[in-house]
């Protein structure tokens, strides 16, 4: 069995034989991630309207469905309309603390079955039952930690009350975000991620970050574009204007 010491020892012997092909440097992360993040936030506090326009264009280009509402309280109405259009009965949602909104209060009385992700440390039983519910749900409602304008991408960090599968197992994914979430470039995403990882124990409770750029797609049969091969067939983004 090869050990770490064996492996790295052999590697170092090979590395000692060459100085490489040319003088080269990696990309430099910002020296102070938090400071860089503050700069991004300041930039976006001014530039978010352009970013939103760009986000919408790019998101629609990849078959995303864009909605704009005035207040958070308007979101359930959009979800209700999507459910009606799909004939869907079951909705899975991030925990209200993560989403900023409790869909059970607004939609639960309308014949829709609403499942909300647990926000306590789940035991095996809770995990099993959540999985069964997630597998059955037709619509998944999440927040978005960032919305990247350049590519029409929603970025979601997993964690407590924010399951990975809410944006994956249901055939329709609905993500809710506001102007504080908008970023304009991948370069800014890099800064945001550096800052997040500067203190990951405090800043992210989960192990996974997903960049979601439109619905699940494949072109593996005769290069014919087909949506919803494993993940959602449809992705909706609801932009909330308020605050």
């Amino acid at each position, binding site marked *: *069995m*090869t050990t*770490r010491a*064996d*492996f*790295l020892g*052999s*590697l*170092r012997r*090979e*590395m000692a034989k060459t*100085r*490489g*092909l040319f003088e080269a440097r*990696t*990309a*430099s*992360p910002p020296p102070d991630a938090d400071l860089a993040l503050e700069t991004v936030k300041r930039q976006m506090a001014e530039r978010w309207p352009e970013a939103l326009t760009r986000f919408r264009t*790019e998101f629609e280009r*990849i078959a995303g469905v864009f909605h704009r509402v005035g207040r958070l309280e308007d979101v359930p109405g959009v979800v209700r309309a999507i459910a009606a259009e799909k004939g869907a009965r079951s909705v899975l949602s991030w925990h209200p603390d993560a989403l900023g909104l409790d869909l059970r209060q607004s939609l639960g009385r309308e014949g829709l079955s609403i499942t909300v992700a647990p*926000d306590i*440390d789940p035991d095996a039983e*809770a*995990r099993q039952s*959540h*999985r069964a519910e*997630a597998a059955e749900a037709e619509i998944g409602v999440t927040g978005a930690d960032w919305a990247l304008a350049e*590519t029409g991408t929603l970025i979601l960090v*997993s964690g*407590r009350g924010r*399951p*990975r599968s809410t944006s*994956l197992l249901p055939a329709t994914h609905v993500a809710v975000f506001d102007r504080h979430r908008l970023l304009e470039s*991948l370069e800014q*995403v*890099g800064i945001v*991620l*550096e800052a997040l*990882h500067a203190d*990951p124990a405090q800043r992210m409770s*989960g*192990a*996974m970050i997903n*960049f979601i*750029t439109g*619905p*699940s*797609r*494949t*072109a*593996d*049969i*005769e*290069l*014919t574009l*087909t949506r*919803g*091969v*494993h*993940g959602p067939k449809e992705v909706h983004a609801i932009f909330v204007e308020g605050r």
Partner: protein
Amino acid sequence: MSDAQLRTPFPQRAHAALGDAHLQEALTIATTKFIGLRKESFAGYPAGEALRDRARAIKEATLQHLDRHLERLADNVERLGGHVHWAATGDEARDIILRLCRDRGVRMAVKSKSMATEEIELNDALEAAGVKPVETDLGEYIIQLAHEKPSHIIAPAIHKTKGQVADLFSKELGGRFEADPEVLTAVARKELRQKFLEADMGITGANFAVAETGTIVLVTNEGNGRMVTSLPRIHVAVMGMEKVIPTMTDLMVFLSILARSATGQKLSSYTTLVRGPRQPGEVEGPEELHLILMDNGRMRQIAGTLREALYCLRCGACLNVCPVYRQIGGHAYGYTYPGPIGILLTAMLNGTAAVKDLAHASSLCGACKDVCPVRIDIPRMLVELREHVDREKVAPWSERMVFGLARRVMASPAVFHLGARLARLAQWPFVRNGRLRGLPLFFGQWTRTRDLPPVAARTFSERWKDLGRP
């Protein structure tokens, strides 16, 4: 590729592919489409060219301190509760996975598309050990049902028609399915959804691994990569050691050009960053995460002639533009990695003897280098490989003899002139309609598919001399 197919020499495999009209059509359509999508994507992205230079520099700089980056990666993955395994060979990587399966009672493993696991022929080994491997990328699923191998790095089943896929699904899954990609995709969705929920283990490759954060990065379009890393209780990632990059800032440079090069998308549908197994507050995610860092022939190229091939992102762009790949497709190459970069990777993983024919399966036109997101100089390395197979006497003796002779003739003006005069006499039985055809002996291998202009009645230098010029 099966042993039987590998025993067929490359020229025969290529010849068979050339005679397959359906394959020819599929290849033309697919590669032309990919070329157009890539071109369009970069045309609308002025920053792209500079980002390609940066990406190339990051790969080279990372290799210059590869030991340090791998150490950081391993430390961080372990700190997050993951396990790191070091595999010198493909056999060792396979054994690590088989041992995990045995110890953890794994009966079924779902896989997202991974060239690294193709490279170590993991599926056969799993099956032999009583573990059912299920490929979940639609293209990979199709070829697994058909008992074939991928024919393109990013579109594994481009050689199959929808009719063939419909027949295959009908036979293997029971039912009668229409030859409509929409219908067939829905069939696969239903079939595989169940497998994701039932499987004990998820196996992936890694497009990148970020050393400073311990993050494994998967780039997919279908969402199977997310399923495989979220639902089963164990996640195993198999990764060539050169896939490590230092930071998130570096990752953004690669993400901005990878999908553009592969499919012309700005980003693939899903970019998944995995940082350790399930964390305490999470309701999903694997209990165990294993990262296998694999050498398998890569290490000796750190200081070898194929070092630059270690920059490869596996985007497939060089396949689409290669005039040879476009004619013969992926299977004719006979190994895991097809196309121009595939020849280099085959030499790296299987030794130079494996590419004694393949090293010549290139016109050296340079199109591959032009489209490579990290500007790998593939033609230069192909020439070096040709030189190597000649020097190491793995090339056939007739080829070495002819080129050895040519070298001596070209090196001396006197011998060259004498040669021209001799050739003028010797060639007459073979000149037909003003072209040299049907040469005897092994020279005939050249003229079997091409002809040559005959040596002129009066050579240029003879006419020059007659003109009385200096």
